[in-house]
């Protein structure tokens, strides 16, 4: 049973240098269970003393077969599975999939739903960056930041729980808008958060950004140039840290992002420190967007009223025959989409998250493919770690903010 895990040198002959074959360099396994690999990532390192000569990532330990499972479920049932892909960006995954379904069936989304989607997506971005900051600081040795960041994250998770009943796997964003309207305490809770958070953000920045130990562990470590990053398909904060200012919210805006005023931070070196700074500043910008969206929140419905695709409210079923028929058809068979294929991309906290949806004309998607940012990020790890020390690998991997659920799907 254990034979299949053991990797032999023969299989990797074409990837390792000749010095490994002779035995001059050491092959070390940084296994799937490791405190610093941020998930079940396996790295085969070729080391010359403490320096890394080469690195071969091995993924697939969290491959859940989500794409194949979605082919067996209706469009609404498949939505539930998208939460579990990138488990730090649940609402963002929902948003990407719902936008693809809406584009495919050409469904309108009311104004209020668009604005609330933006608020929730940006809050999710802040929550995801808080986990990044917590684990990144933990890996570079600053353990107290972990406790502070999770305290703020609890505030955001309370807001999600208030809206949908679930802290993480909300499935709150549905095709046509939202599942239901936000409850009465939502605006107050978000305003409280907006009031508290800037001071905390400054606390994190004070703790880490000027700290000489932190700077020596991160400045100049794992740099990558802009053209190289584009070649390797990096996107999001990892790409912006190199100087390429590519943000899908600005270049191909969706869900009303063009109305909001926010800056996109851009770095210069593309090293670990720049990537950390990107995410820190992005949290501040996300808070700006949330405030603007909350100030301009319009009234109205939160879900499209096209009954062929969106179920009617339960109160109507007792009185209207059409509502009952629509409810019945949607719950037993599900809505059918026209034949065709669409590709929709959104800006997730990790980079470009894209959904390629192919419909064969039935109630179930024919093929769903998610282009996930962490897949390309982990692919670029060998380029980033070559020539650095083993301890730097930990700092580099944590700065890339790759989530293995996103990579393996």
């Amino acid at each position, binding site marked *: *049973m*254990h034979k*299949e*895990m053991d990797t032999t040198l023969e299989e990797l002959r074409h990837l390792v240098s000749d010095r490994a074959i002779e035995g001059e360099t050491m092959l070390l396994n940084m*296994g*799937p*269970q*490791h*405190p610093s690999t941020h*998930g*079940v990532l396996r790295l085969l390192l070729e080391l010359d003393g403490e320096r890394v000569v080469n690195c071969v990532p091995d993924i*697939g*330990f*969290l*491959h*859940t*077969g*989500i794409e*194949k*499972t979605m082919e067996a479920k209706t469009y609404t049932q498949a939505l*539930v*599975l998208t939460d*579990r892909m990138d*488990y*730090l960006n649940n609402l963002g995954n929902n948003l990407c999939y719902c936008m693809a379904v809406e584009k495919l069936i050409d469904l309108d989304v009311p104004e209020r739903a668009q604005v609330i989607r933006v608020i929730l997506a940006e809050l999710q971005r802040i929550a995801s960056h808080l*986990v990044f900051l*917590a684990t990144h600081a933990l890996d570079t040795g600053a353990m107290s930041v*972990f*406790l*502070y960041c*999770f*305290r703020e*994250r*609890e505030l955001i*998770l309370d807001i999600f729980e208030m809206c949908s009943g679930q*802290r*993480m*796997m909300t499935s709150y964003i549905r095709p046509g808008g939202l599942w239901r309207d936000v409850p009465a305490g939502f605006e107050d809770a978000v305003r409280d958060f907006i009031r508290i958070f800037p001071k905390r953000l400054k606390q994190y920045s004070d703790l880490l950004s000027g700290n000489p130990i932190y700077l020596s562990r991160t400045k100049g470590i794992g740099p990558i140039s802009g053209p190289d990053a584009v070649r390797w398909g990096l996107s999001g904060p990892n790409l912006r840290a190199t100087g390429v200012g590519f943000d899908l919210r600005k270049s191909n805006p969706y869900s009303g992002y063009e109305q909001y005023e926010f800056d996109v931070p851009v770095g210069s070196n593309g090293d670990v420190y720049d990537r950390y700074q990107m995410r820190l500043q992005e949290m501040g910008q996300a808070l700006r967007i949330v405030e603007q969206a909350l100030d301009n929140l319009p009234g109205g419905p939160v879900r499209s009223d096209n009954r062929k695709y969106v179920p009617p409210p339960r109160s109507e079923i007792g009185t209207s025959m059409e509502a009952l028929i629509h409810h019945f058809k949607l719950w037993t068979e599900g809505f059918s989409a026209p034949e065709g294929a669409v590709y929709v991309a959104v800006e997730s906290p990790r980079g470009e998250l894209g959904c390629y949806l192919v419909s064969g004309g039935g109630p179930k998607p024919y093929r769903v493919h998610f282009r996930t940012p962490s897949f390309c990020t982990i692919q670029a790890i060998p380029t980033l770690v070559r020539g650095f020390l083993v301890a730097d690998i930990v700092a580099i991997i944590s700065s890339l903010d790759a989530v*293995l*659920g996103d990579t*393996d799907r």
Partner: protein
Amino acid sequence: MGVESKLGNMGVVTTTLEQVVNWSRTRAMWPMLFGLACCAIEMMAAQASDYDMSRFGMELMRASPRQSDLMIVAGRVTRKMAPVLRRLYNQMPDPKWVIAMGDCCSCGGVFNNYAIVPGVDEIVPVDVYVAGCPPRPEGLIHGILTLYEKVKSEGIKTWS
């Protein structure tokens, strides 16, 4: 703790061997870091400030299986990961316990396909199952306290 102190002022406490050993096993049980997927984030949240698990003896999580006695399997177990999990379980010294946290490792959860092992109890014997997708940190803490009850009720004959 259930002890009888007959001569309390003199600093002497009388109890049974079972109670002492079980008490010491529960009061400093160190879990092994085995966070696989989404449940790992809730496990981290349970370890962090708002729902502190250090109150229950789990001050730190040990990365090495040789130094831990509890394995909290948090997340979905795929067929590729299953041999790794078994190997790590074998490396843990006795006495050891397993908590299956979340729906995916209890029964396969939301997923029912070629890639996921439907329930980690096909690979390792599980003591406590915690339901939820993901379970709230309070749910995990309830699972841990249930495990403590189970350990406290173990007799000399069942010690491994």
